[in-house]
């Protein structure tokens, strides 16, 4: 009997049998590893063991279902529409469930929000569900307690406190669930409680600015696809700002030279630290973080002067900066009505001015619309103020962690400790839950029922795809129980939907049918009436005056940024996200202070030198393109609780953030840098920054491309015609799988990396092993700098196995473990591999990965596991894709072009007796890419998109001059610069 099934049995004890899925085990044999190990050991002594005669085959059980549920066939995946919402990140998803375990999240193609891709965090969230550190039962002061007792005690105390007139505060993160909001309202009324919303990263300044200028405290919809000219002032809209996956898709639409218009948008980025968005900008203008105010004022004044509107004289930015901005200004003027200016600073004054700029540019209605406003980022500083008030009676903390991520953490901690009753409703232990009297754990989102209205007018459903793994209860169920409401939470949601949304649709009259349809499709869209905007110019004027009076403080500015994977700190608990290197710095498993090369040279600082900057002691990283007086530090690191020891990395930068006029600013001015003399090696995945003049990631400007579509790709012709082989080559009679990657579109967001991790059971190796250059990712995103170190141009190139037709790796494998299939795949038989690593050496692309240690527990030798992230325990093993072998120690692995998907789709086509159609078969990386930069398909089918792309004049192969004939094509990056 498998150990993995232990969890199923545990859940049986607590869950009433609702449907058949809970009860049974599978007819898939689970504990095959013992037999495999056994056979491997036999390999050692070969035949001798058999001669002993007593070695019988171990008996394995094949246990069928008790009642087989109709929708589940063992060995076949089922997909459920659901949604992901965590820390202000939303995604509409399909959950792939194999044998009752959710193993992968895929974008919901029917979604209006993210039909074509997800973020990396969404991809990695599968691992969160199987996190071994989750609370698995309710506790009171650390002692196990049962739900009934806990409920009774808490309710009694709550009522007592309410009667005494003490404060009862419920602190939640942004809740976008309409049903939950309703429930919370009920709770507040019943217990006379106060509901506060707290977010680690605040956008209340934006709402405030919109309230001031337009009288509407909302976050509007942005349309990057409708903008000819995008100006972003320190706004990482492709990485972490507001709704990056949506924006990336929009952005990519205007970076498509094959389908879209030939006029790319032009993207200006004015920023201090090199962000993901900045590194993709056509023109990146360096400005220190404390110059943003002057930059927006300057832009405003310039446009106002052009439009004959009044402006406030203010200190212009430096002459150099003003000169750099001249192109931007003229482009903005030219593209009036088709321009979009965004600023990534929570300072409401700046946002008011940006609103003024967008008003002048007539962006409202075109690139900014005010209908389907975003509902997330509702948190305000008021929440912390409320907590810090005297005499808190009871505080209920719902998945918030201000003790970790608020600058006044000490005060918050004291306040919670002082409260007469503190309850946490989190699923994972954290710095805040550690202080609470009662821990009433909630399950992960994949075990929960919920709904979500991320954007006004688009309501999504979350449905469980896994039975609760532990003795946990959804926070909503807890509230229901406290309210004494017997309604099942799912019914509560359903009733709420029937009351609110059923009436908004006309497709069906049957209420149950409506509900089933919604659950099946995952989303419900209704029309939102547009709001009339009134523009309040006075506020803009006021803001201009305030900003112009800003003092210039000497010293460095620390800019707090979000890492695309780690986010606000939740990602720090996820080993996949930790191990995925930052797309800009290519550092995994750590945070650091990015400093400008000029400063580094001046002060003699090298990568990894530990510096004291402000209150932080942190290793320095010399970042090309960093503004001279800005030091960028990522938040989200330095978490210590709820995380295995090995995963504790970096320094917590939240205490540095500044609260100004009640708004949280992610920067602090006037700090100095000191060297400590210590050194800490940074887990840098890519050590070399330059292409050394090699034609690897090729690029051209839009102008050059318009003149000649081969621009920047002249070498391709040469290689195609001059590199030939002595041998005739093999024919590919059926399919020939190929992939094309559009470098113009790839932003480097790393969603593909994480999707590949999830799909292909790629092990996590941990910080030490990354430092030893042993990382395992099958797809990596190379990042090269060119030009000046002060402000370099950046080009990115995702590199995975190129599936060369003349593969150098295949020739050298002594045991024929890797060879070529008739469909053009470079196949890798793990079970044949003996691990000479010759193929890896002979791979010019260095895409093969070796299992240096027993990362997965699949090795036959006992007691040698290397698993710092605790991913080989039964619980986390449930994440594995059963269609992909878990590789043992000493075996080479690499990208397989998702051959398991190829096989599955081919089989489906055969079963249905039809041809495979183009686009049906998507690799995991392609599926996760919201920009559609990766296209996979059959190049032997001339109509397929990949075949078309291969014929594009921009197409070339990496290192084509050595005639390896890769199956992966790259399309040159086209920059829209004049």
């Amino acid at each position: 009997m498998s150990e993995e099934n232990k969890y199923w049995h545990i859940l049986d004890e607590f869950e009433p049998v609702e449907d058949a899925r809970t009860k049974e085990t599978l007819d898939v044999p689970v504990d095959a590893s013992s037999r495999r190990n056994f056979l491997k050991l036999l390999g050692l002594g070969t035949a001798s063991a058999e001669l002993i005669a007593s070695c019988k085959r171990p008996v394995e059980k094949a246990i069928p279902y008790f009642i087989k549920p109709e929708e589940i066939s063992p060995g076949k995946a089922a997909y459920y529409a659901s949604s992901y919402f965590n820390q202000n990140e939303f995604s509409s998803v399909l959950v792939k469930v194999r044998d009752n375990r959710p193993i992968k999240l895929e974008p919901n193609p029917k979604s209006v929000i993210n039909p074509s891709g997800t973020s990396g965090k969404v991809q990695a969230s599968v691992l969160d569900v199987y996190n071994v550190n989750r609370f698995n039962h309710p506790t009171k002061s650390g002692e196990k307690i049962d739900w009934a007792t806990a409920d009774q005690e808490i309710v009694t105390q709550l009522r007592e406190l309410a009667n005494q007139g003490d404060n009862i505060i419920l602190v939640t993160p942004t809740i976008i669930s309409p049903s939950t909001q309703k429930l919370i309202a009920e709770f507040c009324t019943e217990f006379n409680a106060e509901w506060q919303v707290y977010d680690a990263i605040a956008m209340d300044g934006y709402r405030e600015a919109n309230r001031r200028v337009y009288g509407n405290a909302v976050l509007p919809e942005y349309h990057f696809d409708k903008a000819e000219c995008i100006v972003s002032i320190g706004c990482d809209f492709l990485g972490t700002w507001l709704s990056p996956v949506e924006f990336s898709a929009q952005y990519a639409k205007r970076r498509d030279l094959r389908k879209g218009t030939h006029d790319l948008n032009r993207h200006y980025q004015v920023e201090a630290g090199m962000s993901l968005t900045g590194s993709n900008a056509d023109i990146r203008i360096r400005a220190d973080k404390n110059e943003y105010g002057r930059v927006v004022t300057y832009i405003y004044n310039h446009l106002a002067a052009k439009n004959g509107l009044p402006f406030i004289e203010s200190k212009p930015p430096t002459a150099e900066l003003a000169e750099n901005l001249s192109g931007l200004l003229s482009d903005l003027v030219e593209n009036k009505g088709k321009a979009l200016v965004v600023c990534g600073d929570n300072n409401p004054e700046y946002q008011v001015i940006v609103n003024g700029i967008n008003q002048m540019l007539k962006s409202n209605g075109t690139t900014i619309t005010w209908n389907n406003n975003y509902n997330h980022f509702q948190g305000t500083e008021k929440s912390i103020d409320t907590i810090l008030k005297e005499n808190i009676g009871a505080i209920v903390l719902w998945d918030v962690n201000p003790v970790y991520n608020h600058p006044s953490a000490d005060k918050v901690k004291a306040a919670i400790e002082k409260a007469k009753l503190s309850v946490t409703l989190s699923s994972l232990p954290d710095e805040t839950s550690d202080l609470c009297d009662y821990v009433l754990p909630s399950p992960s989102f994949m075990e929960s029922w919920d709904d979500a209205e991320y954007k006004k007018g688009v309501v999504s459903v979350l449905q469980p795809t896994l039975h609760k793994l532990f003795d946990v209860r959804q926070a909503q169920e807890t509230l229901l129980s406290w309210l004494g409401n017997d309604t099942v939470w799912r019914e509560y949601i359903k009733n709420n939907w029937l009351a609110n949304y059923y009436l908004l649709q006309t497709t069906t009259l049957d209420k149950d049918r409506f509900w089933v349809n919604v659950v099946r499709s995952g989303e419900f869209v209704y029309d939102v009436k547009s709001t009339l905007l009134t523009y309040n110019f006075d506020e803009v004027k006021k803001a201009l005056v305030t900003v112009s009076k800003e003092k210039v403080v000497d010293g460095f500015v620390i800019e707090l940024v979000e890492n695309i994977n780690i986010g606000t700190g939740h990602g720090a608990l996820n080993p996949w996200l930790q191990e995925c290197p930052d797309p800009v710095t290519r550092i995994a498993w750590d945070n650091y202070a990015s400093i400008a090369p000029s400063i580094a040279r001046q002060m003699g600082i090298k990568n990894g030198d530990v510096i004291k900057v402000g209150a932080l002691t942190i290793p320095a990283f010399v970042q090309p393109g960093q503004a001279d007086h800005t030091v960028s530090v990522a938040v989200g690191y330095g978490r210590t609780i709820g995380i295995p020891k090995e995963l504790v990395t970096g320094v917590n930068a939240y205490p540095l953030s500044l609260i100004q006029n009640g708004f949280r600013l992610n920067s602090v001015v006037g700090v100095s840098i000191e060297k400590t003399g210590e050194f800490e090696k940074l887990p840098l995945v890519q050590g070399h920054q330059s292409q050394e003049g090699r034609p690897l990631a090729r690029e051209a400007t839009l102008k050059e491309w318009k003149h000649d579509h081969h621009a920047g790709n002249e070498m391709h012709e040469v290689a195609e015609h001059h590199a030939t082989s002595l041998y005739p080559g093999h024919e590919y009679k059926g399919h020939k799988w190929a992939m094309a990657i559009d470098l113009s579109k790839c932003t480097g967001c790393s969603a593909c990396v994480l999707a590949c991790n999830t799909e292909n059971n790629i092990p996590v190796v941990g910080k030490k092993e990354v430092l030893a250059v042993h990382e395992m990712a099958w797809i990596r995103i190379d990042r090269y700098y060119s030009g000046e170190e002060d402000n370099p141009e950046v080009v990115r190139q995702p590199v995975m196995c190129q599936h060369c037709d003349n593969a150098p790796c295949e020739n050298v494998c002594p045991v024929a473990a890797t060879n070529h299939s008739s469909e053009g795949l470079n196949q890798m038989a793990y079970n044949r591999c003996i691990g000479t690593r010759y193929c890896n050496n002979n791979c010019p692309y260095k895409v093969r990965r070796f299992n240096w240690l027993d990362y997965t527990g699949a090795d036959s030798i006992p007691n040698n596991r290397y698993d710092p992230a605790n991913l080989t325990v039964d619980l986390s093993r449930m994440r594995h894709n059963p269609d992909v072998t878990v590789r043992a120690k000493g075996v080479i692995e690499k990208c397989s072009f998702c051959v398991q998907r190829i096989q599955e789709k081919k089989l489906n086509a055969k079963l249905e007796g039809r041809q495979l159609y183009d686009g049906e078969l998507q690799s995991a990386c392609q599926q996760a890419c919201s920009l559609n930069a990766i296209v996979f398909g059959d190049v032997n089918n001339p109509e397929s998109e990949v075949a078309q792309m291969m014929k594009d004049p921009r197409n070339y192969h990496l290192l084509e001059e050595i005639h390896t004939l890769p199956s992966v094509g790259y399309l040159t990056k086209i920059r829209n610069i004049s």
Partner: protein
Amino acid sequence: MGAIVYGYFTDELDLLHGIKELQEKGISIEDVRTPFPVHGLDSVLKLRRSHLPKVAFLAGIVGLTIGMGFQIWVFTKGWPLNFGGKPYMSIPSFIPVAFELTVLFAAYTMGISFLVRSKLGPGQIPDILDEKVTDDHFQIILSEEKNKMNNEELSAALAATGALDVKLLKGEQ
């Protein structure tokens, strides 16, 4: 086996001289034992050229055929696989293994043939008449059987060549 007569020299040139003398008397020589291969001895004794080189050559051919044939069979009939776009039968790739097998077969067949032909092998108990033949004695052995002379005549003839310590060993009748 009949009786044998043997004696030794301390210098290889004396040995060669002695053999000549005996041969001139029409005495056929049963065996000569020396501590090292004496230059010119084989021509004096009129030893036939060894067949070992031919054995080696044939074995080499067999090795080559097996090596080449097996590789070609595996990659064209057994299980043709596409390695790096090379044709299934990529002869240049097969040369190293075929060569090594040629050498291996030739060397070992010859080595074993040598041992078998010379009746040498582990556990062989040699008929050593004088332990010093592996040191500095050059020994001539004459057998009664092969010569139409009796022991005394043979001993005398051997002694006459200057051989030292001529002895007679009676064989089993």
